[in-house]
């Protein structure tokens, strides 16, 4: 791309010819305020706060949409510009209710910061002060229309990034209002609670229930880390105040999610209802007694020594590579809680944003691996990529009654061009043959079929997701077999925060043997365990995790706890094996 020469506030710079004045100013180290613009989405020039003076232009121009040109001379803080921005702010503040002192986003709000910067010390215009409703029908966050400035960031991220298209704008002009679907309460809409709208709102209109009034920008720290809930392996930012995580946001700089998160990564950890394990607990005659760590370790060692090699260690995807390495040295057999097939992946998750055809086999990407599902939805909606679904429910013969009509089984149904049962997979092959860049995505039950299909479709790449955030990392340190009911005298389950546990596993643990569970939460393990040992959550530990396509992510401590690091516990078990 050729460069053009521009002068902004007297600073000369050579910038790429295809960028906007806003981006050029950033190049030159000059900041221009924005409200409706956000780097992750397309600019629309709606709010007019980024107006700048460009010589030879009749009027002020919005920097976010105006392209640079050779010899452009721009002024971003001239008297005319400052006056115009103040006018824009006067109008914004006059339209709805912007009493900052009552707002949970006070001191963390772009609109408020601008009002101070441009010295708004009174209301210039009479305010109609309409009273709008507050939509509190969603579990994790609420929408207060009174604080909305109609910048449409929420609408655009929902459509452009998440591909869900739930949010929209009804009516026109002063009557405009952000609405969900055909104007239903947000909680009853097609919203999937990913919270991306919440993360980009520049005012206090979208308010997080967990962190409202809990800490303004100056009082918080941001810690970049990784989500371990699934093998997409999203980069997250923990918002920490006084050693407490008050909110989780998507890390805009991180692959593969580029700022996006799903309900499970963003909200579930902060709305956890289960009881936290802080102290080791021993079950004696059916009752739980808290004991000191030393005693618990002694008991653990004793049970394992008695069992010799007849020990089964079962790890969930919440176990880091480092924890896994230490556990791999302990006695007995080593199992993953879930089957793993991600090592057969030939695609990178970034390929989802390039593909012109998706074949999704036996997994519901709107339930599991959601952020990867967003990429598929985006591809279908925006690039016109085709989506073929192959699953057991599609032929209407699923054993599960709910899925019998083939609808409930896959939330991506609305996006799909065709749906097939596994026995009709050859039909998918014939459609997929013409694709330039086909990507086959599969869950654990579809891995075999997916690799078979890949052999028949030219240039097809495969991406296999299996439950467990770090399953692939644990596979690489020696946990290669899935637990399928193998019997042992002592079971050591290393669970972390995992909440979805197969009934078969719980049933087997209930049946017999000594059950030791290292876990962050009591439930459901207190039904089956004999000894429970505390384990830090992802927020509380550091380590390494490997996602579905083999990318290594760093888990970083956000909260410091008094708990004994699990590595120490696991290393003491390793000594037994020698």
């Amino acid at each position, binding site marked *: 791309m050729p460069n053009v020469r521009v002068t902004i506030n007297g600073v000369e710079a050579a910038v790429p010819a295809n960028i906007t004045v806003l981006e050029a100013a950033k190049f030159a180290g000059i900041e221009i305020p924005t409200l409706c613009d956000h780097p992750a989405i397309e600019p629309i020039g709606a709010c007019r706060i980024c107006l700048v003076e460009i010589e030879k232009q009749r009027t002020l121009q919005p920097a976010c949409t105006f392209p640079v040109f050779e010899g452009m001379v721009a002024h971003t803080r001239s008297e005319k510009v400052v006056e115009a921005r103040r006018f824009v702010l006067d109008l914004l503040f006059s339209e709805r209710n912007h009493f900052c002192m009552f707002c949970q986003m006070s001191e963390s709000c772009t609109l408020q910061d601008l009002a101070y910067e441009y010295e708004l010390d009174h209301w210039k215009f009479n305010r109609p002060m309409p009273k709008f409703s507050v939509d509190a029908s969603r579990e994790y966050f609420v929408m207060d229309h009174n604080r909305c400035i109609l910048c449409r960031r929420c609408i655009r991220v929902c459509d452009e990034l998440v591909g869900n298209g739930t949010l*929209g704008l*009804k*009516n*026109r002009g002063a009557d405009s209002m952000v609405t969900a679907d*055909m104007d239903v309460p947000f909680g009853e809409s097609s919203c999937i609670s990913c919270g991306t709208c919440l993360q980009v709102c520049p005012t206090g209109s979208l308010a997080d229930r967990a962190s409202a009034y809990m800490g303004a920008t100056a009082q918080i720290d941001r810690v970049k880390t990784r989500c371990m809930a699934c093998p997409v392996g999203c980069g997250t930012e923990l918002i920490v105040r006084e050693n407490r995580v008050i909110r989780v946001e998507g890390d805009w700089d991180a692959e593969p999610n580029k700022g996006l998160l799903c309900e499970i990564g963003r909200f579930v950890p902060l709305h956890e209802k289960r009881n936290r394990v802080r102290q080791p607990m021993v079950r004696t005659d059916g009752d739980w007694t808290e004991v000191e760590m030393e005693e618990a370790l002694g008991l653990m060692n004793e049970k394992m020594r008695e069992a010799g090699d007849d020990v089964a260690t079962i790890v969930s995807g919440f176990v880091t590579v480092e924890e896994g390495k230490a556990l791999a040295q302990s006695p007995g057999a080593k199992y993953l809680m879930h089957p793993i097939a991600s090592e057969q992946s030939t695609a990178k998750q970034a390929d989802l944003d390039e593909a012109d055809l998706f074949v999704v086999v036996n997994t519901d990407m709107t339930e599991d691996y959601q952020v990867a599902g967003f990429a598929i939805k985006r591809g279908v909606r925006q690039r016109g990529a085709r989506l073929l679904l192959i699953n057991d429910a599609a032929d209407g013969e699923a054993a599960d009654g709910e899925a019998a009509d083939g609808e409930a089984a896959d939330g991506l149904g609305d996006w799909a061009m065709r749906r097939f049962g596994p026995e009709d997979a050859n039909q998918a092959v014939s459609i997929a043959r013409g694709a330039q860049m086909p990507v086959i995505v599969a869950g654990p039950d579809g891995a075999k079929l997916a690799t078979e299909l890949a052999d028949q479709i030219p240039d097809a790449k495969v991406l296999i997701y299996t439950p467990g955030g770090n399953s692939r990392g644990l596979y690489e340190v020696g946990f290669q077999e899935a637990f399928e009911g193998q019997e042992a005298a002592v079971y050591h389950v290393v669970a972390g925060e995992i909440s979805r546990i197969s009934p078969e596993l719980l049933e087997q643990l209930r049946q017999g043997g000594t059950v030791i569970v290292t876990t962050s939460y009591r439930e459901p393990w207190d039904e089956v365990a004999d000894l429970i040992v505390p384990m830090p959550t992802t927020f509380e530990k550091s380590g390494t995790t490997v996602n579905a396509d083999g990318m290594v992510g760093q888990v970083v401590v956000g909260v410091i706890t008094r708990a004994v690091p699990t590595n120490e516990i696991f290393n003491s078990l390793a000594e037994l094996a020698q």
Partner: protein
Amino acid sequence: MEPGYYAEMDPAKRAMLLTALYMAQEQYGYLSREAMERVGRRLGMSPREVYNTATFYSMFRTEPVGRYLIQVCEGLSCHLAGGAEDLVAHLEDRLGISAGQMTGDGRFSLQMVQCLAACGSSPAMRINDTLYTNLTLGQVDTILQDLEGRP
């Protein structure tokens, strides 16, 4: 003619949205949720997008109106001609409803609109697709009597 007719003609399906909405409104009198969903399906758009567009334009209706929709102009010319206010008051009186309402039997709706492009022959009103100009209160009575006799 089905809205889909145009969709098949034009590769840019969504460009047909306003036409399709207009046709649906002609057919049903207003744009029901079902009608908007159906238009969306035919044009490959989500019901949300259709709804947002329909509410943007003031001449699309998303609520039912009476069999006869009476739109009285309150634009500048009609106002200056001295007719609009009297006209509305008279209609409200005759129909027993206020502007913006529908009669209980679902036969008449009364609305105020900004301009009917008949400034030269104000005051003006429109009933469904028929424009009435240079109106007097007596003429309004005659028109209403005629409509009351119709199905």
